[in-house]
C-alpha cells in the first residue's frame, strides 16, 4: 500500500512537470538561440579580442568565476562546511586506517604511485586551463582528490598529511574572499575583476579568473582529500 502511494506520488510529480512544461518551448520545439534570456549578454566577445568585459574563452567559466562568482564562493563554502562536518562527525583525536579487509600486493602499490603523478598532473592541467577549455577548478580539484583516493585504496597503511590539507584549504578559501574584498577596495565592487583581461584565448588572460580557479582547484582538492581521509580512518579505541 505504502509503495503504491509512493508510486502515485512519483508519477504525479512527473505528470505535473510535463504538464506544466507543455506551454513553453521546451517540449513543443526547441528554441532557436538564447534571445530573450539574461544569458544573451554572457557571450559578448570574440576569439582574439583584446580586453573585453569578461576575459575567458570558456563562457561557462566566465559565468562561474566572474559574472556569478558569488554563487561559486557560496558553493565552495558548502563544500567547506560539509568537509568540516564530516571531520566533526568522524574525526577524533587519534586515528588509524580503517581495516578494509584486503592487503594490496606489490604491483598495485607501485603502479598506483606511478599513476598518481599522471592523474595529479591532469588535474592541475584541467584546473589551470579552466578558462580556456571545458573543466576548471571543480573537476580539476576532484581529479587531484581522486589521485589521493587512489593512494588510499592501493595502500592500506597510507595516510596523507591532513594538517597540510587544512592549511591549503584555509589559505585558498581566505585568498578567494580576500581577492573579493580587494576588488571592493581597489576597484568598486566585491569580486570585481580588477586585473587586465588580456586576449581571449591566451593562457595568461581573463584577469583574476584563472587565479580564482586555481584557488578553487586547490581548495576542492584538499577538501575532498580530507573527506576521503576521514572516511578511511577510524578512531583508535
Amino acid at each position: 500500500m505504502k509503495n503504491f502511494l509512493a508510486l502515485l506520488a512519483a508519477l504525479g510529480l512527473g505528470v505535473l512537470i510535463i504538464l506544466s512544461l507543455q506551454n513553453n518551448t521546451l517540449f513543443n520545439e526547441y528554441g532557436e538561440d538564447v534571445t530573450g534570456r539574461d544569458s544573451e549578454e554572457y557571450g559578448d566577445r570574440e576569439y582574439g579580442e583584446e580586453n573585453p568585459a569578461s576575459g575567458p574563452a570558456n563562457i561557462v567559466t566566465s559565468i562561474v568565476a566572474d559574472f556569478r562568482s558569488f554563487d561559486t564562493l557560496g558553493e565552495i563554502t558548502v563544500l567547506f562546511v560539509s568537509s568540516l562536518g564530516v571531520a566533526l562527525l568522524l574525526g577524533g583525536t587519534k586515528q588509524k586506517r580503517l581495516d578494509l579487509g584486503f592487503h594490496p600486493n606489490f604491483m598495485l602499490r607501485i603502479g598506483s604511485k606511478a599513476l598518481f603523478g599522471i592523474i595529479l598532473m591532469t588535474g592541475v592541467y584541467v584546473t589551470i586551463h579552466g578558462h580556456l577549455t571545458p573543466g576548471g577548478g571543480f573537476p580539476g580539484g576532484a581529479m587531484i582528490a581522486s589521485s589521493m583516493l587512489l593512494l588510499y585504496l592501493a595502500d592500506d597503511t597510507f595516510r596523507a598529511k591532513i594538517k597540510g590539507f587544512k592549511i591549503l584549504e584555509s589559505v585558498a578559501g581566505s585568498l578567494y574572499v580576500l581577492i573579493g574584498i580587494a576588488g571592493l577596495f581597489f576597484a568598486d565592487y566585491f569580486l570585481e575583476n580588477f586585473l587586465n583581461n588580456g586576449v581571449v584565448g591566451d593562457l595568461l588572460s581573463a584577469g583574476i579568473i584563472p587565479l580564482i580557479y586555481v584557488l578553487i582547484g586547490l581548495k576542492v582538492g584538499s577538501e575532498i582529500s580530507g573527506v576521503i581521509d576521514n572516511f578511511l580512518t577510524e578512531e583508535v579505541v
Partner: protein
Amino acid sequence: MLQFAAIILLMLGLYGLLTQRNVIKIIISLNILEIGLNLFIISVGYFEGGLAPIFTSETPANPNFVDPLPQALVLTAIVIGVGTTALGLALARKIYQKYGTLNLDEMGEN
C-alpha cells in the same frame, strides 16, 4: 528527449526516497533525484544546433552557442550535491556505530 530521461530519474529518486528503508539506499535515491535534476537543468539550456559555449580559433563569426547559464548553475548544483552526500554518508556511519544496523525498521526508533 533528454527532459523525459531527467523526469524519469526524478520520479525514480522520489519513489526510492519514499519506499526505501535502508540509510544507504536513501542516500542513493537522493543522488538519483539530484542527477535527474541536474540533467533537467542542462536540458533547459540546450537547443538544436547550438555550439559548446567556448571561443576557439574555429568559432564562427556569429556563434550560436547554447545557453551557458544552466551549465554554470549545474556545476554549483553538483558540488552542493557532493557536499550533502558526503555529510549523509558520514551520518550513515554514525548511525551504524550507534544502532549496529542501517535499516530504519530495525532501529527501534521512529
